[in-house]
């Protein structure tokens, strides 16, 4: 069975190579079909392996395949291989399944774009990298995937490169992620130094019994978490994700909602043993998660760009997932990751369908009343917003409430996490329905702008419908005991996740059911309240919105301007660094080394300048610096 494991990643790699190398001989359609078929291949292999898994007893659910030994010399033996266990199975299915639907959708969405072959080759490359990330049995391979998805994200954000702002957005994502990656690398070095291996399972085996101080685990997990914060857009490194919306909408759905951005949550779940040994880190993860969830939700309320609303909502939902893993409820985090992939993928694709119908318009203020024109998009998106809001019976309800319950039952004074989570859930319901109502109901603002909205072709609506079904049904694999279920999802993942002492796991399994039901009731009431409020403000009395905005003056301005975080970063970090680079450049390059050479189109000036420089003896300048170096070295040697 394990022999077929490599096929999961091989298919997208082949798709990438075919589209990348032979793209020019393929028609637009063929290119899309090949890319989709490649992902379908991965999906089928993963699904087949998962089905085989379900027939096995829990402890036998592990497949490993070593592809080759990377550097088999001395103590440095890195095995490159894949590991298929319940956790990576879930991830591989989400990545290839949701990925497949988004690939198919893209065939319609990207039709007529001159770069469509390049687009599909990047998309396949991304899938390949992401599958490597989730299947890796080794932190080095995982890091390779981690960097790879970042690279593809960068390439796809800047896909429409004509636009300066879009190119900048890609760059911003890239730079912010480098900060996080620095943490990841240092964590890898520390782990290797300590354990002599980077195999995930070997580290997990050695760590609990090792005679190492707590500080080591706190440090390494914090550094890993720094990587996760960058990749999964949490405070303070979330600023890149809203800008990343500059890419094509299916890219936002695949990379910036369903898969890549959740890699940070996966990283923590994958290394749950290490994190369980570092309670301090866990608390930080939970607190950062809930704060992010809350703040991003408050920003989402006032945004007018449909994709920006969804972007902040993604940041907020990721915050929930981090809260879950931070309180030790790893399976709840992964559960929400999965349902989120369904409904957020759906919402993005739905938004893409609206944007497609309006010829690229993304501003909510130019929409409204689109219910008749886009019927399929309308009802599928209704499912999506209901799922994310957490209406009972839909997938988001089960996963979100499991997180809230885990937060609540985590003692040691963490129940305020629950309170913040509930408030955020209310806000979420409000802003998601705001988006929904402003798009499909109310005054049809697009008429003034002269748009002729039309429903998208079926190649785009069929993925929407399928995702809508998943958004409804996806939660039923994890029905909690309090509602009479057995939470199969949790039990499926249980063998590969650590048990974090003092929480969660026990509480999730043996809850006081009455209390849990009560909390579910509370959250449902809050959510319905949020929806009703959105209905009042945006459907019944549209003038209310502006009134409110005025009355809330300062708060509204803060939220609308995203708390001025971008501006603060620019002032505190970007500008000083630019100044430093500029300064070094000027000083070394212009003052000390050479000025005019860099400018083009001044050939004559340059030549005359060059002659003048030789005559004025700039070489003496260089020589004197060499002399200074000599003096430094000699003084050092003497003093020592």
């Amino acid at each position, binding site marked *: 069975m394990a022999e077929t494991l490599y096929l999961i990643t091989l298919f997208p790699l082949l798709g990438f190579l075919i589209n990348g190398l032979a793209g020019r001989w393929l028609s637009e359609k063929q290119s899309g079909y090949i890319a989709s078929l490649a992902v379908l291949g991965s999906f089928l292999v993963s699904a087949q392996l998962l089905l085989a898994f379900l027939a096995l007893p829990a402890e036998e659910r592990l497949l490993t395949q070593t592809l080759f030994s990377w550097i*088999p010399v001395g103590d440095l033996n890195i095995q490159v291989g894949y590991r298929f266990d319940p956790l990576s199975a879930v991830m591989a299915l989400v990545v290839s399944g949701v990925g497949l639907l988004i690939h198919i959708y893209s065939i319609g969405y990207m039709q007529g774009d001159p770069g469509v072959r390049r687009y599909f080759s990047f998309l396949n490359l991304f899938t390949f990298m992401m599958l490597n990330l989730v299947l890796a049995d080794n932190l080095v391979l995982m890091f390779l995937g981690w960097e790879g998805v970042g690279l593809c994200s960068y390439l796809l954000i800047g896909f429409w490169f004509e636009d300066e702002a879009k190119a900048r957005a890609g760059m911003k994502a890239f730079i912010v992620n480098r900060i996080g990656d620095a943490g990841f690398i240092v964590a890898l070095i520390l782990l290797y130094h300590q354990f002599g291996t980077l195999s995930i399972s070997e580290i997990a085996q050695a760590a609990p019994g090792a005679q190492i101080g707590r500080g080591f685990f706190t440090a390494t997990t914090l550094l890993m978490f720094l990587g996760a914060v960058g990749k999964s857009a949490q405070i303070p490194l979330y600023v890149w994700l809203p800008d990343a919306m500059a890419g094509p909408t299916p890219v936002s759905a695949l990379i910036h909602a369903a898969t890549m951005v959740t890699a940070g949550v996966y990283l923590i779940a994958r290394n749950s043993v290490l994190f369980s040994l570092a309670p301090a880190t866990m608390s930080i993860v939970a607190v950062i998660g809930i704060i992010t969830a809350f703040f991003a939700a408050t920003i989402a309320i006032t945004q007018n760009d449909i994709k920006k609303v969804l972007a902040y909502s993604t940041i907020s939902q990721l915050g929930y997932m981090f809260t879950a893993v931070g309180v030790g409820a790893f399976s709840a985090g992964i559960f929400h990751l999965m349902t989120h992939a369904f409904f957020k993928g759906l919402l993005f694709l739905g938004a893409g369908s609206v944007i497609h119908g309006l010829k690229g318009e993304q501003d909510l203020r130019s929409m409204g009343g689109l219910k008749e024109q886009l019927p399929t998009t309308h009802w599928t998106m209704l499912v999506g917003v209901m799922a994310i809001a957490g209406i009972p019976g839909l997938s988001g309800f089960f996963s979100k409430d499991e997180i809230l319950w885990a937060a609540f039952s985590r003692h040691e004074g963490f129940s305020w996490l629950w309170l913040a989570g509930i408030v955020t859930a209310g806000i979420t319901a409000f802003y998601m329905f705001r988006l929904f109502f402003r798009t499909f109901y109310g005054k049809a603002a697009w008429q003034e702008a002269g748009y002729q909205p039309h429903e998208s072709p079926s190649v785009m609506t069929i993925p929407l419908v399928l995702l809508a079904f998943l958004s409804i049904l996806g939660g039923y694999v994890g029905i909690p005991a309090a509602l009479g279920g057995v939470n199969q999802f949790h039990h499926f993942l249980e063998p590969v996740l650590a048990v974090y002492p003092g929480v969660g796991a026990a509480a999730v399994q043996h809850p006081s059911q009455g209390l849990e039901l009560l909390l579910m009731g509370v959250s449902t009431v809050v959510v319905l309240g949020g929806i009703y409020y959105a209905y009042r403000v945006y459907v019944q009395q549209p003038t209310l919105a502006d009134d409110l905005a005025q009355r809330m003056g300062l708060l509204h301005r803060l939220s609308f301007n995203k708390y001025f975080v971008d501006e603060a970063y620019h002032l505190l970090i970007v500008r000083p660094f630019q100044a430093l680079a500029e300064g070094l450049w000027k000083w070394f390059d212009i003052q000390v080394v050479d000025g005019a050479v860099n400018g083009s189109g001044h050939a004559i000036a340059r030549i005359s300048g060059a002659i003048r420089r030789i005559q004025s003896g700039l070489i003496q300048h260089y020589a004197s610096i060499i002399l200074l170096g000599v003096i430094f070295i000699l003084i050092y040697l003497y003093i020592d």
Partner: protein
Amino acid sequence: MSWSDLNSTLPELALAVTALILLILEVVKEPPRAQFAWTALGGIALALVLEFALPIEGQFYNGMIALDHFSRFLNVIFMITAAGAVLIAVPYLRKSLEERGEYYALLLFATIGMMFMAKAHDLTILFLGLELLSIPLYILVGFYRHRVRSNEASLKYLLLGAFSTGFFLFGIALLYGSTGATHYDAIRQAIVSDGQLSPAMTLAGFGLLLVGFAFKVALVPFHMYAPDVYEGAPTAITAFLSTGPKVAGFAAFLKVIITSFAVTTQHWWGIVWVLAALTMTVGNVTAIRQDNLKRMLAFSSVAHAGYLAVAVLVGTYDSAFGMMFYLAVYAVTTLGAFGVVALIEGEEETSLEIDGYRGLARRSPFLAAIFTLAMVSLAGFPPTAGFLGKYFVFSAAVDTGNTWNIWLVVIAILNSLISVYYYLRPVVAMYMQEPADETPLPMSRVAVPVFLVLVLIVLGFGIFPMMLVKSGVAAAGSLF
């Protein structure tokens, strides 16, 4: 001198004879002169065969020359570099109608110099090799006589090179004065019996030697010449200049440090630490601002010198191995990158700016792919060999457990993260921007082998590094 002495320098002799033949051909042969390049390549191939036919171990010429796995490993790098430089030069020189025999002859003389630097076991031979390398380079940098920039670069290189050579030679003299020896082993013994890096004369001698090496491998603040010279030189020469001599400089640096001065590390590590940290930081940060690819790659090679200096500083078996691996990969990658630049730059170096790379993927998919691979490897992404090189060097430093070394590695990692930015800029331009003109670039078939070797080493040794690891381990082993 015996026959075995002569045998030990057969590869160098073969190259010298080839170079002389080329000089004669230059006088008698009318253009076109395609045979020059083939003659040079034939000489290099012969030298390579002789290199492998030689007895591997031993000291010759009264111990002044040492043949071991170390020298062989490096000589192979030098010959590959030289062959690559020849192949890149063919289309380049033809384009500018400067195809002349002395070009290849000078290249071969410089190669002989590098080979002596790696084989040297005595400071006098080292100095001889250094000069044999430098003098042809001064000429080659100014090979475009009619170009002011080429001349300017040549003059700068000559003057500053002479200046630093002065320090180097003075350092040797001082060391000889205080220890009575120029032989590596004898110097070590003198220092060991003497105890410390004193008297002052030894100290000063060592310090000046350090300056000479720092200049040759372009460590900050002795790097000032590098960007100017690299930019002014004909690009085919820049390709050679930023690889071969740098590798030779580091090889000699490492060997002298480990063989003669390892016992005195505590006296000088601070200097190398500061130089390494400065070099990588200044190199990377300055490279960010460069729009001219040649200049960007020049600063990139300064930055790489900083990483390599870490290996010299650490000076363990592991770090020496890491450096061997790093040098091999670095040389091929940088050579290939400059090779692409040389092919693209057009007549009179019109498209050296990053804008000239827009949409290159469409104009020449092959060159774009090669250049991307080179950039990715220089940036140190897995699974390229560039990643492994960095990994070996840095992990050797971490393994010493010395806090200062670990901090240096942290600085190095932060730096390589910065470097990703400018390495990916041309990639973005090539793949994601529209070309200014759509005409396909003519591809020179002659240069193709250079690029294939690059692919082979960067990806082949990135994924299956064992062969290179084994040779590297053997090479490092010869030093201990």
